[in-house]
């Protein structure tokens, strides 16, 4: 995956570039809005990571200029402004995701990977499969092998989201945002309990677990055979 980090704090930019390279991606960095825009227009990047406040050209303006030129490269906005309305502003300006600073790298990585994969367009499929787990989005039925699994509506949406991003790490905040539509941080980790409930429904009694906990990052649904 080719990534472009547009971030004016050189230390933070270097850190991100290094961290992305360590996990096997190609990453470049730009330190102001103009350079960032030029590089984004010139290079074939899969995801842009854009700091909101940049010298010369504001992060939102960079994204706006790209979109005006017809570039649909997914962009994740990093910002010290973490309130809901800042987030809304960022997404309205053409950003695809918004992560308030300070962030953990695993959270950023998970989101970037989801953004990059989204271009493939898996969300259109009506039947999602992971191993012998099958989720039908139209009939709202879930099967593991031959057994039908009955899920609560929210559990269904949780599983749906996980399966849409099968093989990818999904963080707790991503789940809270996408399954519950909340952008605040619940003091206690309520998501873990929902996951363990879901796990008991889809994995209990089967020799091969599909729903995995990724330590320090989140969860992943994956066909164990892979």
């Amino acid at each position, binding site marked *: 995956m080719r990534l472009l980090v547009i971030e004016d704090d050189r230390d933070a930019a270097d850190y991100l570039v290094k961290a992305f390279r360590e996990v096997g991606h190609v990453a470049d960095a730009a330190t102001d809005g103009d350079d960032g825009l030029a590089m984004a227009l010139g290079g074939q990047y899969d995801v842009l990571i854009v700091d909101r406040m940049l010298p010369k050209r504001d992060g939102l303006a960079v994204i706006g200029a790209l979109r005006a030129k017809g570039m649909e490269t997914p962009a994740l906005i990093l910002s010290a402004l973490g309130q*809901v*309305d800042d987030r809304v502003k960022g997404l309205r300006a053409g950003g695809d995701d918004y992560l308030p600073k*300070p962030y953990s790298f695993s959270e950023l990585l998970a989101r970037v990977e989801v953004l990059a994969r989204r271009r493939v367009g898996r969300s259109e499929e009506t039947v999602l499969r992971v191993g012998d787990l099958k989720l039908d989005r139209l009939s709202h039925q879930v099967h593991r092998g031959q057994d039908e699994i009955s899920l609560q509506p929210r559990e269904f949406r949780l599983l749906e989201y996980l399966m849409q991003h099968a093989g990818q790490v999904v963080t707790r905040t991503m789940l809270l945002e996408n399954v*519950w539509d909340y952008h*605040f941080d*619940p*003091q*206690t980790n*309520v998501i873990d309990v929902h996951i363990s409930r879901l796990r008991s429904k889809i994995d209990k009694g089967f020799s091969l677990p599909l729903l995995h906990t990724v330590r320090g990052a989140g969860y992943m649904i994956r066909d164990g055979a892979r």
Partner: protein
Amino acid sequence: MTALGKLFRTTTFKLTLVYLTVFALFAAFLLGYFALNTRRLITEQITDTVNAEITGLSEQYRLGGVRRLVAVVDARARRPGSSLYLVTTFAGESLAGNVTSLPPGTLDNAGWTETAYRRLDESDSAEHPEHRALARVFQLPGGFRLLVGRDLDERERLYNIVISAGRWSIAIVIVLGLVGGLFVTRRVLRRVDAMTETTRTIMQGDLGGRLPVAGTGDELDRLAENLNLMLERIEALMHGLKEVSDNIAHDLKTPLTRLRNRAEQALRSAKKESEYRAALENTIEESDGLIRTFNALLMIARAESGQARENMSEFDAAEIAHDIGELYEPLAEEKGIALKVEAETPAPLNGNRELISQALANLVDNSIKYAEPRNGTVNGGPAEIVVRALSEGDRILLTVADSGPGIPEADRSRVIERFVRLEQSRSKPGSGLGLSLASAVARLHGGELTLADNNPGLKSIIALPRGGPVQIGG
């Protein structure tokens, strides 16, 4: 600036001067008009009298010749306060009358003349000054001349009296006006100075100072009272701010110190990679906690400043109750608590959905934390939490009732403050900001958070006005 200079520069004094000038000009005009008219009136009276006498005397002359005229003039001239008379021959020789020392040639022309004269009985020129008279010279048939006049002293005296009365009254108006103006100005200035003095001490940091109120209920008092109310609000805010910064200093420094100590400890004594790893993981965990506290503080500050008012929309509070209930139900169950939601009827509300959800989530989280049963039961009964959303009049109530230990009445208002955690709960995880945020959110919407007894347990109530916050002016 000298004291007097300051006095002259005040608005009150400048107004006094303007009014004084206007009044003085008006008085001068009035008195001048009066004086001139009086003078004109007296002159007219004199003219009328003289004309009447001349008509009378010429009639006497016509009837009895010069002899009769002389006799009549003699008789009239002798009366006290009489007019002035003089009858002469064509050559100017005096035949009768009470006037002398006329300037030569006075009698040559018939008609009106204003002239100097002396009375016959005061011919001693050294002792008596000349008087002035308004006289008419009349040519009688046969060459005789008749002069009849009236003394002008009276007219001049009256005129002078009026003029001097005018001068005096204008002088008095000016003096009284100036003195009054200065007096009023000084009074106002003294009060304004007192206010200025107080504001200066307040600006130097003494927020306890209040502007003096004279108690007269005038405009300055009203101003002072309003400013005092403003000062009280500012003082309360400053006090709150100080408390918050003290609390922040304490509650952020404590975990920061812990963080630093652990890192130091690891550097000093860790030998194996796994030990370093554990220390680093610990560090990240600790800093995540700090970030969480920091975010909560920012959120509270934002809610309190009213900035989040922009994101208001219509939504159903009952739906929020169900959503939050559903979000926390597995967690509650895991801890052996039954979480129920009672929100059957829609409770439409105008507000910030995200913030209200978070406030309710905080209350539920709180209840789960403290209502955790020991040995399966709490206070003898099964542990349970009930989340309700109901409309009551023009308010929407979101309540969370638990069967936990509750909060003693004396502590209820205190726990809403930032970072306040009761001694019993120090061991539990949490920042002590959950209730503060819920309260700030409620106030942002023009509502309030109250804590009540659930007999047993705690009942937290967020009461919100249905129509959203009423914009407070100013």
